[in-house]
């Protein structure tokens, strides 16, 4: 056992990378749920984002175009959910599950010819001067751009929900869609926008796995991150900064436990392997001891005639 072999700077840097796909997907889903829609199709939208981003960046040679394509891919898939739940008024849970199953199969089909291909690398941003500061530089200022997009998105969603009129309307729709409708807000339209935003974020998260974290395409490569993102939104009490905390905690402990294993720490591996789930849930449950609860209309179907 030699803890000295773990480099804390590299550890923190890699935990941020491990957390980003989760964060992106969770922030998207948070907005969707704030609007009163429960979309269980996060996993499906992520994997479709992963392959569309991968395919486009391989074909064009530009990771940026890839990420844009992944957001579009995720959003397009979420259109299917829109069609089912907002137009046909189908059950949201069933539709979300269907979306995941469909996404997993469809992405495998799309990805047939991309197995074993190496994507173009995005490269890290090296901001002159500040990225050279010891310790702080490698931790905060030497990452790929999408990681910063994730953090910026969290801040943006938080500010929008809390301080803007748009955010207020979105929350009103999620809390009481009948009242919002009575006030003249277009409930369905607002929800569709939220679902599309959620799809785009999930797609970005998926592409982060296939283009940066792994980077390659393999069938089913998101391997359950979408489900963890869903749980994270609940445990984070629908608050953006807590979702960020939860994602970093989860990513951090995942990476830390691998580091501890490699350094030969004498803690049974089973405990290490389950620690990310347990610690993240514990911390977020303790935080949510205040009176924060789910949007009141979450998962309920809206129709103007009701």
């Amino acid at each position, binding site marked *: 056992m030699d803890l000295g*072999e*773990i*480099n804390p700077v*590299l*550890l923190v840097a*890699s935990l941020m990378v*491990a957390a980003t*796909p989760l964060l992106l997907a969770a922030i998207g889903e948070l907005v969707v749920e704030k609007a009163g829609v429960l979309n269980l199709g996060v996993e499906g939208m992520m994997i479709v984002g992963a392959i569309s981003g991968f395919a486009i960046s391989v074909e064009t040679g530009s990771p940026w175009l890839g990420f844009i394509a992944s957001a579009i891919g995720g959003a397009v898939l979420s259109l299917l959910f829109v069609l089912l739940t907002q137009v046909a008024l189908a059950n949201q849970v069933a539709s979300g599950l269907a979306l995941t199953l469909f996404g997993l199969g469809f992405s*495998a089909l799309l*990805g*047939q010819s991309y*197995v*074993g*291909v*190496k994507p173009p*690398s995005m490269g890290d941003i090296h901001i002159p001067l500040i990225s050279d500061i010891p310790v702080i530089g490698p931790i905060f200022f030497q990452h790929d751009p999408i990681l910063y997009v994730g953090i910026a998105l969290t801040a943006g969603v938080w500010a929008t929900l809390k301080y803007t009129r748009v955010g207020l309307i979105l929350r009103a729709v999620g809390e009481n869609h009948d009242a919002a409708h009575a006030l003249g807000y277009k409930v369905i339209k607002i929800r569709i926008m939220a679902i599309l935003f959620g799809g785009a974020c999930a797609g970005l998260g998926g592409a982060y*796995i296939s283009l940066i*974290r*792994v*980077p*390659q395409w*393999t*069938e*089913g*490569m*998101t*391997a*359950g*991150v979408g489900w963890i993102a869903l749980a994270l939104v609940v445990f984070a009490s629908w608050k953006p900064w807590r979702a960020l905390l939860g994602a970093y905690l989860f990513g951090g402990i*995942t*990476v830390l436990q*691998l*580091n501890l*294993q*490699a*350094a*030969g720490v*004498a803690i*049974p*591996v*089973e405990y290490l*392997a389950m620690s990310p789930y347990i610690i993240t849930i514990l911390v977020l449950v303790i935080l949510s001891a205040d009176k924060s609860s789910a949007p009141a209309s979450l998962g309920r179907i809206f129709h103007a005639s009701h």
Partner: protein
Amino acid sequence: MKFTTLLASAAMALGLASGAMAADDKTKVGFVYVGPVGDGGWTYEHNKGRLAVEEEFGDKVETVFVESVPEGPDAERVMTQMALEGADLIFTTSFGYMDPTINVAKKFPNVKFEHATGYKTADNVAVYSARFYEGRAVQGHIAGKMTKSNIIGYIGSYPIPEVIRGINSAYLHAKKVNPDVEFKIVWAYTWFDPAKEADAATVLIEQGADVILQHTDSTAPQAAAQEAGNVVTFGQASDMSEYAPFPRVSSIIDDWAPYYIARTKAVMDGTWESANTWDGIREGMVAIGEISDAVPADVKEEALALKAAMAAGEYHPFTGPIKKQDGSDWLAEGEVADDGTLAGMNFYIEGLEGEIPQ
């Protein structure tokens, strides 16, 4: 239980009534996979075996498969479904399907089951596996020669005998050519999770490993090594040649096709019997993928000689003297490990650090 028996008998009655003629001239073979067929590793090779069966028998056979089946109760459901749909022979291709296979086999005495890498058999359950540890010996040799930092990272999946055997075999042969070598082992607790496998590889690389051996199914560790630039890897279960010549310098390839064809034939002929098959390099179930030019010529030659010795049956990777991790004797000078001990191997050999999770 009653409900399933009812279902089973109903299905059988239906099968007898409607499909007697059709069922008889087509043998239906089912495959249960733990990962997706596109994983580029373990499941990919099993699926190649399935395709070989189709090619061999053409119209006389019908194959079905279900991929990404979790190890546990879900697997039982999938197997039951296959048996109800009239499968004559079902291959369950992961260690964790052991008990589900035995359970389902009890309910369908007329269906033959084949479970990969397990050890529980029944009248209608055979087990089969490959002596991957022979391939690990070759890997260990190359790894010991190639490492400059003397740290070799090993990504384990689950602490089961098959994986532990691989670690021991690789370590033994790396140590033989490089006494300073040290193994760092990380248990991923998954067969297939590219993101986690990539994380594990990155962690090992950050802690100084310049050779990564993996016992997980995807090519993600290869990608992580490629990103790092100076890290050597080996293909696992499949050739993974898309990462050759570097970082992937060689590989262990599982070739299930001859076995699957032979067993399907046995079912067709009515000669199928429960058996315990454990084949290695000699029988061709384990192949060593091409050793790339990134490996120095003399090392390549030694590795090929080692492979040839195992193919000829002259050399067994576990030949004494070997001590266990706690320093007690396991094999005396010249003694060769018996299959029983190997099949249930649950200890590290001397020199390996850390404990096996229990």
